[in-house]
């Protein structure tokens, strides 16, 4: 746009909003993610802010690019990665990043194992993510307070440098548990000040988890009958009390196991089955879960071989 805007010229916000196509992304977000009201509100706010900021720049008001680095805190399975992907789409459609790709990295991808290994490794990941979004999962592992010679510190320094000097090229999103991320930011004040938006993902409630389960089943063309729904509710309630409960991810895994049991039941029953039987999940499929065998107040994970999940 040219420089001849006057103070009274009308700018069409609604039109700019429509042109950017972000409504589609926001709708997807609403549809895909159950609950998370506070997160969705924040994302709408950020989207609105970025849109207005772009309008301001179009008429030559500010030249400063807003800081876009974000931190997503919350327990596992609360939708942090999904939101990061959607956020990348929003930023892309508003023209803040050139590509809508998200590169996910953890400590293993960034930190080297010997002197001189870390910098090239970190830079390689950063370079792959450039133009888009770098999502660092469990970012607090980068900093180990008990070992001051840990190579993670080197990664943090390079990261800070790029976050500051190449804001146009890369948006960094940090994700992890709330308490540990707070610790991480406390010990790395430079990081805290370079992250503009802190989003906290609350745990899902029982009702929301049931809703999520119904959506997942619907996508895979299965249905609960009424007793099964009751049983599943009881299952989720017990499962939530276990220490390794991972919200939506646990629900997805539970459904996978329930599908196995349903298939097993149909198979061992023999004879003929109807289409309705193929889609229906019985209460029996759910009640066979190990969660119902154990007292619900156990402290230790039932299964230790596979991290984070029990059946």
């Amino acid at each position: 746009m040219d420089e001849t805007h006057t103070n009274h010229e009308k700018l069409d916000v609604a039109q700019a909003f429509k042109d950017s196509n972000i409504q589609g992304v926001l709708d997807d977000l609403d549809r895909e993610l159950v609950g998370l009201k506070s997160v969705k509100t924040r994302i709408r706010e950020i989207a609105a802010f970025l849109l207005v900021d772009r309008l301001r720049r179009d008429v030559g008001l500010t030249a400063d690019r807003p800081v876009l680095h974000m931190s997503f805190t919350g327990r596992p399975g609360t939708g942090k990665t999904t939101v990061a992907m959607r956020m990348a789409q929003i930023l892309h459609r508003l023209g803040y990043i050139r590509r809508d790709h998200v590169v996910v990295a953890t400590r293993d991808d960034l930190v080297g194992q010997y002197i001189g290994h870390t910098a090239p490794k970190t830079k390689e990941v950063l370079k792959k993510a450039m133009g888009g979004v770098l999502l660092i999962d469990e970012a607090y592992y980068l900093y180990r307070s008990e070992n001051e010679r840990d190579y993670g510190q080197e990664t943090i320094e390079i990261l800070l440098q790029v976050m500051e000097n190449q804001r146009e090229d890369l948006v960094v999103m940090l994700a992890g548990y709330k308490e540990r991320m707070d610790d991480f930011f406390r010990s790395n004040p430079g990081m805290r000040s370079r992250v503009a938006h802190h989003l906290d993902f609350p745990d899902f409630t029982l009702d929301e988890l049931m809703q999520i389960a119904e959506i997942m089943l619907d996508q895979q063309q299965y249905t609960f009958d009424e007793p099964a729904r009751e049983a599943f509710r009881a299952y989720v309630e017990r499962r939530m009390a276990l220490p390794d409960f991972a919200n939506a991810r646990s629900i997805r895994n539970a459904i996978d196991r329930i599908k196995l049991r349903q298939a097993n039941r149909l198979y061992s029953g023999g004879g003929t089955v109807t289409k309705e039987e193929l889609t229906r999940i019985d209460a029996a499929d759910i009640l066979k879960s190990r969660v119902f065998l154990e007292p619900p107040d156990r402290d230790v994970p039932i299964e230790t071989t596979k991290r984070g999940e029990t059946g």
Partner: protein
Amino acid sequence: MRITQGTFSFLPDLTDEQIGKQVEYCLNKGWAINVEFTDDPHPRNTYWEMWGMPMFDLKDPAAVMYEVNACSKAHPNHYIKVNAFDSTRGWETVRLSFIVNRPKHEPGFGLVRQEAESRTIRYTVHSYATDKPEGERYSHDGTGSAGKR
């Protein structure tokens, strides 16, 4: 004397934006990019020093610009070039190579005559810059004291 090696070398020096666009073209073609530098401008000097590792799986030219800038900061008075390697079977070669940085003063080349048997004369092209040891060939004030002859 301005040396002309690689693509675009008869054009005025590329701006950062133009380099970015060329790199984007390479990335869209799926070529791997690397950055090389040298202070020996002889045309037969094929093997330049590598700046870091070749870069694979990049999505955006910003990553290459990051390395080009880092290299020219470390070697402001060297020749720096960007190479794009095509690994497609049948090609397996550098498809595009262009200079992105050159010393402020390029002393050029002299013709050296060697007297050989029975009045034969052998000619060779000698770069004035290489009279000095590696690393001192292009002085940092840009006056190019290497070409003192």
